[in-house]
Each structure stands twice: as structure tokens, then as C-alpha cells.
């Protein structure tokens, strides 16, 4: 019976039967998998405090022949997701990342680079005061790694550079920025400088996002563009998008500290964070 040991992020959990739990994991070696954790709801010893969303684990999974689901044999907590629930903004951004991993990746399609990027984002989020630009950049960086990278500095139709212009069309159907010859009439016009800064943002560590110089008004404009972009190209509405929208209205993405938030100040890695994992985000 094949057995795997791999690092994993807990994406979702569901009660299964009277004593088991079905766990969706994004693993380093196997990609996204679903596994049954036998006795997880009844026993305090089998998976203590490990099977919660956002947790980074070292798991042991077996793949019984002819079984529909893999079986989670063991899990060790490497990095708890606790700081992510001490601020609603962090909770929302981290949830959107998990939803994208859960719904936009194929079962058992290994992508170690995406795993390390995602683990790094969660580590960075644990120590950040979340703002709207952080939420937007996490979404764009994740989309890029999932193969949905929008065209931001070259025309999505003909490939000509568009960054020298004042305003360019952002044509969702074409895949992003478009030159006047390729743009459709209805595509909204946006500052080329905003798209250029977002292009830099995709390649810049999240902690340095303040250096991009993107004003809040421009972030709001970009949020609207990419919400349509995701709907068109991914073909589904992310459940977490509405949540993010609601907490933006509650000013939970204004870069302030939440009451009772014990996470370290921005830029500091939380205790126990895996060395180097934040560097990829």
C-alpha cells in the first residue's frame, strides 16, 4: 500500500460519519488531496489540535488500493494558523488563498513551488497588519502561480508594450491590458502606471508592498478589475470574495491592529515560522 510523508496545509475539514473527519490538504509532494482522518472527532489523541484550517503539518498518508479516499495516518503540527484568526482581515485573506488552492488546483497535481509560496504567504500574513493592497497582491500572486497571470505591461492581443501610454484598456476577455488596436469598445480604461506597479507587485515580496506607491483609490479600482477577471477566466465566483467585500466595509482591511491581536509587528517573522518559507511570498 503506497505511503507518503509530506508537508501539508489544511484547506478544509468536514465531519464524516460519526467519528471521522474528511480533510482537504494541499501537500508539497502530492498537490491537493482529500484524506479520511479515522477517529479524528472522537479521539483526543489521534490528531490533537492539528486538523484546523491554516495549520501547516507534516502528514503521513496511505493510499489503500481500491479505496475511494486516501487515509490520514498521522499529522504533526509544524506551524499553527492561530495568528491568522486574531485579525479579521488576515482571516479573510488567508481564507481566500485556501479557497483558491482548494477549488482551482487539480487533485494530485503536485506543484511544490505553489506549496512553498502558499506556506510562505500564511507565514507573512501572521505578522502583517492587513490592508487592501495586501489582499489584492496575494490574489494576483496566487493567480499567477495557478496559470491565470493577467497581462499588465504588454498588450494581451498583440504583445506590444503598453506601459508607455497614459491610460490603457483592461479587457478581461483578452486577458488584461490591451492596446488601442486590440481593445474592445466596452473595456474600462485604467492608468498604465497602475498596471505597471501591479506587475512589479507580483514579483515583490509582500512585506515590501508599501514601496510600490499604489494609492488606496487605485487599489479599489484594481479590486473591481480583478474581481471581473477572476469570474471570467476561472469560471466561478470565489465564496471568500463576498466575505472580503463585507469586511472591507467594516474597515478590517485598513492596515490597523485588531484588539487582542498578539501577532508581532509587521515585518517580523512569528515564533516557530519555518525559516525561508516567507521569502517566496
Amino acid at each position: 500500500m503506497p505511503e507518503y510523508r509530506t508537508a501539508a496545509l489544511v484547506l478544509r475539514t468536514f465531519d464524516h460519519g460519526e467519528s471521522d473527519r474528511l480533510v482537504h490538504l494541499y501537500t508539497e509532494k502530492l498537490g491537493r488531496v482529500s484524506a479520511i482522518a479515522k477517529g479524528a472527532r472522537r479521539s483526543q489523541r489521534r490528531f490533537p489540535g492539528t486538523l484546523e484550517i491554516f495549520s501547516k503539518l507534516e502528514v503521513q498518508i496511505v493510499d489503500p488500493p481500491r479505496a475511494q479516499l486516501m487515509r490520514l495516518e498521522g499529522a504533526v503540527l509544524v506551524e499553527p494558523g492561530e495568528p491568522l484568526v486574531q485579525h479579521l482581515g488576515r482571516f479573510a485573506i488567508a481564507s481566500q488563498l485556501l479557497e483558491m488552492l482548494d477549488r482551482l488546483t487539480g487533485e494530485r497535481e503536485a506543484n511544490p513551488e505553489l506549496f512553498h509560496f502558499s506556506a510562505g504567504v500564511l507565514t507573512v500574513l501572521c505578522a502583517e497588519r492587513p490592508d487592501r493592497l495586501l489582499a489584492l497582491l496575494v490574489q494576483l500572486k496566487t493567480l499567477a502561480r495557478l496559470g491565470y497571470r493577467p497581462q499588465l505591461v504588454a498588450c494581451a492581443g498583440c504583445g506590444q508594450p503598453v506601459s508607455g501610454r497614459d491610460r490603457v484598456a483592461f479587457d478581461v476577455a483578452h486577458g488584461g491590458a490591451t492596446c488601442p488596436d486590440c481593445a474592445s469598445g466596452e473595456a474600462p480604461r485604467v492608468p498604465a502606471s497602475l498596471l505597471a506597479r501591479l506587475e512589479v507587485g507580483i514579483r515583490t515580496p509582500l512585506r515590501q508592498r508599501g514601496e510600490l506607491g499604489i494609492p488606496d483609490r487605485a487599489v479599489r479600482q484594481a479590486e473591481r478589475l480583478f474581481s471581473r477577471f477572476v469570474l471570467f477566466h476561472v469560471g466561478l465566483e470565489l465564496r471568500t470574495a463576498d466575505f472580503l467585500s463585507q469586511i472591507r466595509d467594516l474597515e478590517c482591511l485598513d492596515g490597523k491592529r485588531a484588539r487582542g491581536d498578539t501577532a508581532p509587528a509587521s515585518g517580523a517573522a512569528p515564533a516557530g515560522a519555518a525559516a525561508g518559507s516567507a521569502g517566496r511570498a
Partner: protein
Amino acid sequence: MTQLLTPIERVVSALRRLPGIGEKTATRLAYFLLAAPDPVASDLAEAIVRLRSDVVICERCFTPSERSPCPICTDENRQGRQVCVVEEPADLASIERAGNFQGLYHVLGGTLSPLDGIGPDALRIGPLLQRVRAGEVDEVILATNPNPEGEATALFVADQLRDCEVLVTRIGFGMPLGGDLEYVDRVTVRRSLENRRAFGA
């Protein structure tokens, strides 16, 4: 052509919609009901019908009850200025079984769960704020579960109450009764130490 279900298949199909019941269990229960003495099946059917017709939601705490306001909300012997906020009616029942809480309740009707598309708008937070702002409450005890969704919900409710003159407390976390330090996760151990108290206090 639509194939009509047999009576047994209809029962199996209905039972399978219940949480935690799969095809095999549903089939076993259906055949049990078929073979059981007469009052078993008819009593169950009547109880289910009455569950839907006789139960209302309490207008104050939002727990299912035979009348509104519910017996807990109208009990003059309870400490009415203390309100315990829980996720679901089953959580209220657990606290009542413990037998040492004499205050009132507020059932939120769920938790914040972005992955299920459940946001602040889906929780019953408005009526709680009304009770607090009306000066009816001295203490709000946040008794949502200690998982990510429950923690985020407690944070949200506390944040909504930040401008109210009310004491907001969180239920304690720590070692479970019968637990074993060797098998408890490090977050629970850390919280147990943070929430320690003087011996005998």
C-alpha cells in the same frame, strides 16, 4: 421515463439527506422501520411532523422552543444581565447540561466561515447589539468554539461591542478533563499555562 421510487426507496432517499447517514445506514434504518412494531414508525413520523409545527424560534435568544420568549428568557430566577453568546442551539444545550450558568443566551446561528461564503451579514448580531445598547446587559460571554471560525467570530462580536459599556469575556481554554499532556497540541498547552489560576481559587 421517470421511474417511481418504491416506498422503501423513498424512505432511504429521505434518510440519506440527514447528516452522517449514508446509503447503508439509511437502508438498515428503513428496513428496521418496516419491521418494527406499529407505534415505532408512526410515533417517529408524528414526532417529526410536530417538530416542525410546534417549535418556534425564541424572539430574544433565537433558540428553538415551544414558545417565544423561551422558558430560559422568561425565567425570573436567572441572572438576566449576563448573556452567553453561542454558535448553535446545541451549544446552548451543552452549557445548560453543565448546570452552573444562570445567565441568558444569544444564539448567533453559525460562525464566520469565508470558505462557505458565510460573512458577518449572515450572523444574528443586530439583536445582540440592541440588547446591549438598551442597557439590559452587564457582561457578554463569548462561548464560540476554539477553532479558527469560532475564534474569528468571537473577535468579530467583540469588535462590534467595542463602543458599548459592557464587559466582554471569552470562555477559558486549556487542558480537557481526562486529557494527557503528552498528547495535547502545543497551542492548547500554551493557552493552559496562560490561563492558569491560583490553586483552589
